């Protein structure tokens, strides 16, 4: 359990997840009220990661259901294990004379066989999939339903039933009820809008790109040992790039990749040439790169000028660095 919103923030921080109070508040309430959370936002802002770190912070086992087009109940909930059942039929055939021993009429015989049905369709022959696992687990779990927007609307309708009463009915067996209501996180990239009914059942969290301060903190946490001036430069540029009208806006993962790459290259600050050479790490489309390039070069010049003004005695640039590229 979390004590307060600050407690959430602190404990997620310990799991190397940087979040503001808005995210922490929703996590706090989800746990306190036992309600599912629908997390939406652009790609790579840490939606999936949030589910994972909350599980770790609360020390709950995590069960993940990855959604995709065509995902259906048998993949998400349970399947009958045909081969096992078949094997059982074989056994039954061997036993059949035993079972039928002493049966005088056809009716009696078929009744005796029918009585074996119960065993045939029992939990023994069920292969549990993530949803069933989450519901029947002995301990409370965190159920991460990832990229729910990729699933079909019909699956969503089914999910809605499960999330409203946390019971699952298997026609041949009966109703299975959750021993503990799982803590549920659903993530969506908005490939399709979720139904209002689902949204009503959930708390809603919209994660946007982090602001400059938060992103700096993320880099410092996730890329230990990185030069702080370099971090500032990177984040500053990425934030500007996000303001451009691009096909694919760079996400936190791309900022992280960029930072790691630049660190490997021993860079200690960003210069025009270096940026131009590595821009393809954060931007994937040629058109985007071209768009960003001119904008960034302008920014870098401006920045260089500011720095020159700040530092009266210009430091000799270390020739050992940055030339790695050529």
């Amino acid at each position, binding site marked *: 359990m979390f004590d307060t919103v600050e407690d959430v923030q602190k404990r997620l921080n310990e799991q190397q997840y940087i979040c503001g109070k808005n995210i922490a508040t929703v996590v706090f*309430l989800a746990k306190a009220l036992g309600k599912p959370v629908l997390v939406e936002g652009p790609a790579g802002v840490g939606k999936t990661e949030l589910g994972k770190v909350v599980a770790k912070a609360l020390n709950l086992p995590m069960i993940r259901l990855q959604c995709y087009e065509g995902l259906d109940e048998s993949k998400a909930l349970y399947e009958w294990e045909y081969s096992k059942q078949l094997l059982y039929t074989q056994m039954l055939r061997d036993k059949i004379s035993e079972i039928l021993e002493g049966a005088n009429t056809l009716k009696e015989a078929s009744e005796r066989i029918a009585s074996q049905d119960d065993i045939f369709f029992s939990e023994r022959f069920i292969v549990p999939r993530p949803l069933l696992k989450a519901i029947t687990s002995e301990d409370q779990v965190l159920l991460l339903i990832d990229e729910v927007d990729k699933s079909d609307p019909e699956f969503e309708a089914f999910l809605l039933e499960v999330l409203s009463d946390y019971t699952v009915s298997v026609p041949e067996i009966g109703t299975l009820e959750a021993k503990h209501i799982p803590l549920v996180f659903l993530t969506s990239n908005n490939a399709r809008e979720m139904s209002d009914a689902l949204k009503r059942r959930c708390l809603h969290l919209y994660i946007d790109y982090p602001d400059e301060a938060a992103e700096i903190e993320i880099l410092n946490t996730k890329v230990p040992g990185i030069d702080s001036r370099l971090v500032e430069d990177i984040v500053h540029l990425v934030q500007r790039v996000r303001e451009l009208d691009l096909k694919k806006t760079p996400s936190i993962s791309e900022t992280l990749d960029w930072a790691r790459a630049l660190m490997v290259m021993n860079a200690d600050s960003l210069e025009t040439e270096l940026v131009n050479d590595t821009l393809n790490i954060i931007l994937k489309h040629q058109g985007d790169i071209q768009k960003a390039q001119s904008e960034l070069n302008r920014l870098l010049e401006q920045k260089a000028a500011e720095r020159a003004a700040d530092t009266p005695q210009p430091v000799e640039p270390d020739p050992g660095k940055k030339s790695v590229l050529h």
Partner: protein
Amino acid sequence: MQRKIVEFTNILRKAGVRVSVAETIDSFLALDEMSLDDRELFKDALRTTMVKHWDDIPAYDRLFDLFWSGFHDVLRDELGQAVAGMGGDFDLDQLMQQLQELLANMDGDVDLSELARAMLSVDANSLEQLIQQAGEESGLDGIRNMLQIGFFSRRMLEQMGLEGAGENLRDMMEQLREAGMGEDDLARLGDLMKAIQEALRRSVRQYAERELDKQNHDYMERFRRESLQEKSFYNLTEDDLRKMREVVDRLAQKLKNIVSIRRKRQRKGKFDLKGTMRRNMAHGGVPFELIFRQRRKDRPKLVVLCDISSSVSNVSRFFLQFIHSLQECFTKIRTFVFVAELGEVTEIFRNNDIYTAIDQALDGGDVINPYTRSNFGMAFNVFWRDHLASLDNRTTVVIIGDARNNYNDPRAWCLRDMQSKAKNVIWINPEAPGAWGFGDSVMDRYVTYTDVAEECRNLKQLSRMVDTLIL
């Protein structure tokens, strides 16, 4: 508190943010779990329980600030100023204490109204509540324009009984004089009460102004949302275009969901005996899995002819965005653009993302010259010559254009032949039927050879057309 929240949800609803009763109750539960001192937390808690569409968030933020704007602070400010106006050596606490003692000694017959009492003890909380009450009782939420501010303020002050409270206080000061309060103190108290009366007048006025802001905001917000869908394609700003792109995406998404549910219903086809036998060979013929024969629903083949001359290009733009967002609802889409020449741009859509493709297509796509004068007759003639053979009884032809032919030969017979080969010919015209056939419009000539011809001037109409296409 709960009442205030319910009131807030009503404001949200009016601005088009759908909040259900269940969600309102969730917000109560949420607030039970946390302290309400931190305004940001309070705001986040209400948001996560009540606002589920990300694009409602900006509206929520604005309304929250307006609604929970701390009128409280305004009032406190005004009262503070009233006290400060009494001069540097005025000691409120001392006066209050003296008052308390005197009142306690006066035997029971002090008869003060609630307002008078709140004024006398300079109690901001009670005063705020009284103002709120007066607002509700005088129907302040009906305020719609600046000119009504004076009217509503007066009405609220009457509701509160400010006049009565003044007399009430004067009577009481007489009693205080008899009870032995000094003339100096009495004069001060009198001045203070006057100042507070003025403070209340100003606060009430501000309260009314804020309410007007709130109400206007709802109105603007609703107006903005509705109008985009209904705004005529003829006068769109750059900004509108961008926003509409999103609206189209949403509408397309909605249609797609509907279609996919329709499909699912149809999908359970007939029981397929042979298929079932084949599938279950492995289980020794025991039918574990049943196979149903898929009933194939005919998805239409689409041939789209888009007029890209500037008068119609926006209709073409959004129609193209619609159908290409809904690709999977069609077996095949072929797209042609025309002004006078006609050219196929199907490839452009295959090789680019949708927005780039649309921009290129509307620019002639390197297959036609967009800077000519419209000539429908010639464009249809080219289609007739080169592509008529590709039409069959599963193809729907959609033509987007205003049929303003610059007095050229309409060559309606081309359209006649297209109609006789295709399943359907649908014409989407941004002009109203009243204008068809007037001036250089030859729509009246073409209409004869269409199965459906409709006016389509805004997104609402357009999405309705698209829906009938994929039915």
